[in-house]
């Protein structure tokens, strides 16, 4: 049975309504910061229960502009997790600062107990990642931020609608960055991102930064970037944003079914604990597996498109060479990198596909 990782074909099997609106856009030609962008921003802010949402070019830019707006720049350090998608650290470098990594915990998220030791006099912000759609431990992280006077920016690129005790991500830090990349839970037809904040000052600054620093057509208040969410992509987003809750619910349902099927395989398989007060939205369904590489090959053989997010932790990437890290610096992230595997969990999976994935993992371990 084929279990593809990508679901775009199913999601856009009937794209006529979107295409109709895009036709309308091509005829009206309001391509840059047109009314659909403002509409999408308002709906996105509502979805997050936050005051402001600013449409930008990408999730990466959402993070780097947030850091810039908070005054992070050359000579500064920003603390983040060692096992995220590269763009989290890339955004820090983009702001001119230096990424400082902290090891993760069993839930694949930054370990709050290890943050303080990484803080130096140059630290200017904390950038926890709600990795895979699982909220980071925001209580202790915010407490550290408060105590040390450090603003917190949430990397919520994978975590739209995730929550802790009913409080949605993006409502914890000074700002939060979201990605609308085609494979995200809420996606568009190309690159796109959103920054969410409840601070009117940050909102104003970010709107300047994304649009060349222009206060109006002729006056430039600060040197900025060109980093606007295309109207075309906002139109797609407006069509899909209403589906977010249903998509999230379907992913959670699939994930819980996978949990139930895989947990009995402990200790060869380790599924992270699910805490009742946390809402994990399963952008990725990740677990740790003994003999991971062979399991991966086995699943591929069975036409299950399993993946690894990611096999090389950030501090061991060639790009990090000059940061001075070594193998052994982050033992948990390094061990996980060799053991983690990601199964398809998207909203278009059928029950028999979920069952087939569980059976395939079981067969793998029972066969040896």
């Amino acid at each position: 049975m084929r279990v593809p990782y990508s679901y775009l074909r199913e999601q856009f099997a009937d794209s006529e309504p979107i295409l109709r609106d895009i036709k309308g856009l091509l005829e009206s030609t309001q391509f840059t910061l047109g009314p659909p962008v403002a509409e999408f921003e308002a709906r996105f802010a509502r979805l997050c229960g936050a005051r402001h949402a600013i449409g930008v070019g990408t999730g990466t830019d959402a993070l780097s502009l947030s850091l810039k707006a908070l005054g992070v720049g050359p000579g500064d350090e920003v603390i983040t997790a060692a096992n995220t998608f590269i763009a989290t650290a890339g955004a820090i470098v983009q702001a001119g600062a230096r990424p400082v990594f902290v090891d993760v915990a069993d839930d694949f998220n930054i370990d709050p107990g290890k943050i303080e030791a990484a803080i130096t006099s140059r630290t200017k912000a904390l950038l926890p990642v709600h990795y895979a759609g699982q909220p980071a431990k925001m209580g202790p992280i915010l407490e550290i931020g408060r105590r040390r006077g450090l603003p917190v920016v949430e990397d919520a690129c994978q975590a739209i609608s995730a929550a802790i005790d009913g409080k949605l991500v993006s409502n914890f830090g000074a700002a939060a960055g979201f990605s609308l990349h085609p494979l995200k839970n809420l996606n568009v037809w190309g690159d796109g991102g959103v920054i969410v904040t409840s601070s009117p000052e940050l909102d104003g600054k970010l709107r300047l930064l994304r649009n060349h620093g222009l206060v109006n057509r002729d006056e430039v208040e600060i040197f900025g970037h060109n980093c606007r969410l295309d109207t075309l992509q906002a139109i797609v987003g407006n069509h899909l944003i209403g589906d977010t809750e249903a998509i999230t619910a379907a992913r959670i349902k699939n994930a819980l079914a996978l949990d139930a099927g895989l947990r009995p395989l402990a200790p060869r398989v380790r599924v992270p604990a699910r805490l009742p007060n946390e809402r994990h939205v399963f952008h990725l369904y990740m677990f740790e597996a003994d003999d991971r590489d062979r399991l991966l090959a086995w699943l591929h053989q069975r036409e299950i498109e399993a993946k690894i997010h990611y096999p090389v932790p950030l501090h061991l990437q060639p790009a990090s060479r000059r940061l001075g890290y070594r193998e052994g610096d982050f033992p948990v992230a390094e061990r996980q990198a060799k053991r983690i595997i990601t199964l398809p969990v998207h909203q278009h999976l059928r029950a028999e596909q979920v069952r087939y994935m569980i059976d395939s993992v079981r067969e793998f371990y029972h066969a040896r």
Partner: protein
Amino acid sequence: MTTTMHVKYMDLPRQFEGGTIVARVVEEFKRCQFVLGPQLVEFEQRFARVCGAAHAVGLNSGTDALFLALKALGVGPGDEVITVPNSFVASAGAIVMVGATPVFVDVNAEYLMDPAYLADAITPRTRAIIPVHLTGNPADLDAIGAIAVRRGLPVIEDAAQAVGAAVGGRVVGSLGIAGAFSLFPLKNLGVAGDGGMLTTGSREIADKVMLLRHHGLRNRDEVEVWGYNSRLDTIQAIVGDAVLDSLESVTAARIRNAAFYDRALAPLAPQITVPPRRAGVRQVFHTYVVQAERRDALREFLASRGVETKIHYPIPIHLQKAAEGLGYKRGAFPVCEAQSERIVSLPVHEYLTEAEQQYVVDRIREFYRR
């Protein structure tokens, strides 16, 4: 009294009128691989051919094309990059984005970098020169290039307004080490949102920019350098490819319209100064900029008669609030500053009719009572 005619500055909806482009684009969208899809590669190859460059790399914006060209050349904090103060702010913004300091030199009567001032602006910290082909008119790359070679500095062409412009048959985008193009909707070649393109003859720079635009990823799992996310959407490449079919006719129409103004407005000197021409140069007239006495009154008069005009740009970059930290004062660039009070951009777009142009000319004459 003549009837008022509405002469738009630009008529973008006309580009998509009739539905041919729209239908083709929408059909392609259905098969679209949204990120770095095959249609992007095709568009890049075609764009490179148009510019006579070996490589073209699709990016998120023209600003990013300049920014990533500078990054690929290793320009960063503590460095200086030379450009002009009369461009769109992004020419300087891209320099600030890499952490470097923009250093301006004054312009000549053609609104272009004046090579005579260039040598004096070069310091030991200078790392690159960015002449701007403003209005679609190629800067004097022979003179600028000669100085650059002597001082061992790379030249990046800011060709954001100049796709298809040429000097003696050599097309912009192939004259410097890299060329930066904008595909912003109002450009001669525009897409349905933000987009940019970097051209270069250097495989090494093309490779580096391809890494930089895609998070530094050598493959799915290996990150070679710290990068960015600045990919031209495949969807926008599809639009660009469709619009590229008409680039030659768009350019020809703009050149024809500019020639009409030249002939009709030259006799209005000294109140109106038409843009100078150099032999052997192909200007593509993204904008048609004249200098006018009593400019603001002229614009108001034209507006009252239905003629839309613009100013590109009323405040030079060195006098913007953003530039306060750079330490320039009014008077630093007298030519640019004088022009900023006299320049006005007349409609020159490809859909302009001769009757509309004649109307614009007649209203200008009426204003000056000539």
